[in-house]
């Protein structure tokens, strides 16, 4: 039945055996309504798709969407009433205000401080003469963003180490700020230039994450000697999974270097003499030579060889033995497990 004017006919038949002779009949006219949200589109957004909307990279960030609805009776549509769940820490405005009528625009201004404030919001449509409400789930995201684009609350230009001028490029990105609020984080600090943890950074061995590649390609390597594979072998990672993987990787370097060199006063070339290519000076793979053959189980990529800095010669090029050890023995990440908390676009939930 379509919306509009309709007629309901009623017949009263007391004699069930003789239905062809109704004793009374009547009809009534009524309006059939069809309360519907007909369309939702992004107005000022970085991206939208179906019912997903992403804050743009303005400071403060803006996420504005337009919704259209109807009762099916054009003369009633002015009375439509809309609501949209607020985001704590973001200002929600509407046009018109209050949000009534067949076409309204909702605008969130400013990203919230809590990651959990992004995500599912309820858009509702009602009418004073209609005793039910129509609801639609929508999802609100923030920009994963590149260095220089951060717009989380409190984001500000940062003076880099050794620099003199504050620059947006050194401000932690949105993904770092929001992913750090979840169990994906291992407490690594942010570094614009990339994820790293230096074996020469005694005694802190500070782990950093930065410049995430999203998605991170699936790399795969199985040690032909043992059949053991690197952690997350063959996984393609998106968004929070990239962050969780990189955080676990750098944190494992931090744990390793602290264990290997934390008690020897830092990296010691007398204990680590693996030859590197001639002509470059230097030596070593940051594993203690005496431990290389017996100190690492196959699950950690061992045994390693003290006479070369690159034991895994058939692996894709990724560095020396300390890197291989880390790739094998870092905590494997359960890919997809935190997708429900990943509100970055592009991220693990929307890409």
């Amino acid at each position, binding site marked *: 039945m379509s919306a509009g004017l309709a007629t309901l006919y009623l017949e009263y038949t007391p004699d069930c055996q003789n239905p062809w002779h109704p004793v009374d009949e009547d009809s009534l006219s009524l309006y059939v309504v069809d309360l519907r949200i007909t369309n939702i589109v992004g107005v000022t957004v970085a991206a939208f798709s179906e019912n997903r909307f992403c804050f743009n990279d303005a400071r403060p960030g803006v996420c504005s969407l337009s919704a259209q609805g109807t009762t099916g009776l054009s003369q009633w549509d002015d009375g439509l009433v809309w609501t949209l769940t607020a985001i704590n820490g973001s200002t929600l405005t509407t046009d018109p205000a209050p949000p009534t009528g067949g076409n309204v625009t909702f605008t969130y201004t400013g990203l919230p401080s809590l990651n959990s404030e992004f995500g599912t919001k309820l858009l509702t449509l009602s009418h004073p003469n209609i005793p039910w409400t129509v609801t639609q789930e929508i999802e609100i995201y923030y920009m994963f963003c590149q260095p220089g684009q951060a717009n989380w609350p409190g984001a500000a230009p940062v003076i880099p180490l050794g620099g003199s001028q504050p620059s947006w490029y050194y401000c932690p990105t949105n993904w770092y700020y929001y992913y750090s*609020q979840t169990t994906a984080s291992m407490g690594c600090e942010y570094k614009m230039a990339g994820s790293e943890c230096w074996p020469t950074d005694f005694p802190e061995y500070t782990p950093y994450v930065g410049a995430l590649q999203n998605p991170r390609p699936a*790399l795969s390597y199985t040690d032909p000697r043992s059949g053991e594979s690197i952690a997350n072998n063959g996984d393609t990672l998106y968004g929070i999974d990239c962050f969780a993987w990189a955080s676990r990787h750098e944190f494992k370097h931090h744990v390793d270097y602290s264990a290997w060199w934390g008690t020897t006063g830092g990296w010691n070339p007398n204990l680590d003499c693996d030859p590197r290519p001639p002509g470059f000076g230097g030596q070593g793979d940051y594993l203690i030579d005496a431990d290389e053959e017996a100190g690492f189980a196959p699950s950690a990529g061992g045994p390693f060889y003290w006479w070369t800095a690159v034991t895994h010669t*058939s692996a894709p090029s990724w560095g020396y033995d300390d890197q291989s050890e880390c790739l094998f023995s870092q905590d494997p990440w359960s890919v997809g497990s935190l997708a429900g908390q990943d509100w970055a676009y592009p991220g693990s939930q929307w890409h």
Partner: protein
Amino acid sequence: MNRYTSSPRAVISVMLVEVLLTCSHCAASQASVTPDEDRLRHLLEVIGTKAPAIPVPKEIEQTKDRVAREAYWAQRQARFAAFDAQINAATDELAAMGDGIIDRLVREYHKPVGAPRHQIIVVLAKIGTPRARERLLDIAIAKHDPKRTSRASWAARNLVKISPNKEQIIPLLKSDDPDVISIALQHLPGVPVDETLLGQLRGFLQSTEYHPVVNFALRMHAASVLARDGSSTLTAERVGAIVDSIRTVENMPEAHERLQPDAAGTLADLMYHYLIDALTKTEGATPFLRDAVQDLLAEPRAVVVVALALRGDSQVKHELRQLLREPRMVARITIRGHAARAMGVIGTKDDIDFLEQLSQDDPLEVINFRGPVFEMVNGQYVNTGPRMPPIKPKEDPAWATVRRSYPVRDQAREAIRAIQKRLDN
């Protein structure tokens, strides 16, 4: 009987009928409510609870006091662990209800508002029965969501974990979501490859759609499935499918861009690495590769020559040596790295001088800043591009501790060692 014409009253009357019907339906449902139903509702509510977001306080972010940092992180982990324990307990209790709640879970999953879909998938996986697996498969291969939602791939990940055998993973390949296909392929190596599966794999080995990273994964995993079929059936076809993939690597979108900043080589270079690996592991491939190489030129020919050498075919040694000195191929890090390694497999004492020379003057250099990895040929950067951060200026302190290496020279030295070991024996 009165005739009603007043429209609002008429609307409300009709609505009241509807409300009454709805209410009587609810009443009927409630009549059959058991204590388990109440519990079920409660558990569904628990698994839908939002995880706490715990921002890192500014003072912790900035402190260099290691003890304070560690204490904060321990406390934070404990809060997350308490939350996880609550969700896991509810998930386990739901799963223990078994097949009896599957239909209810599926209804809940499809509720338009407020469904804890992510965790329902976990419950289905924990139930793990054939019916639960069927429902997971439904979610995983449902017509692909243009929003690229992760739910299909999350269902696929959970399904592969509980599938009692690899054959049950094959239906995931029907999905039109490349992430789901990639997950399935990743878990398929070892499954016998029949004509039907071979046909599907051929398609994935030519992937060029959507995103270069995803295409890369599809080709890599599909090649691995073909290589690790331990049967001796369809060997020519399996080898042919991998060789056909090699022929089109250069046509992949962004083939000449870095695949990622912290692994040397372009997307094509790393793709060749995995395709060489697959050809090296495919049992009985040598005669078919010898045939295939006749029609190939440039990189595809080089890749097959290297694979033959790694399989121990000394007939290709002359070409392998040419390849290692070919100026046009000098930046192809994985092909040349494997070529030098292959000299260790088929080389003899006559090759040691050649390898000695290579180990001293090969121009391909890798500069590893522990984050980004740069490549140089004769002092000129190669394979830079949009995926690489800017090259660090010479005054950057990172240069003091940079790791520099010559990967082809390294492999040449390994090859000499391997040859000498054979001679000693």
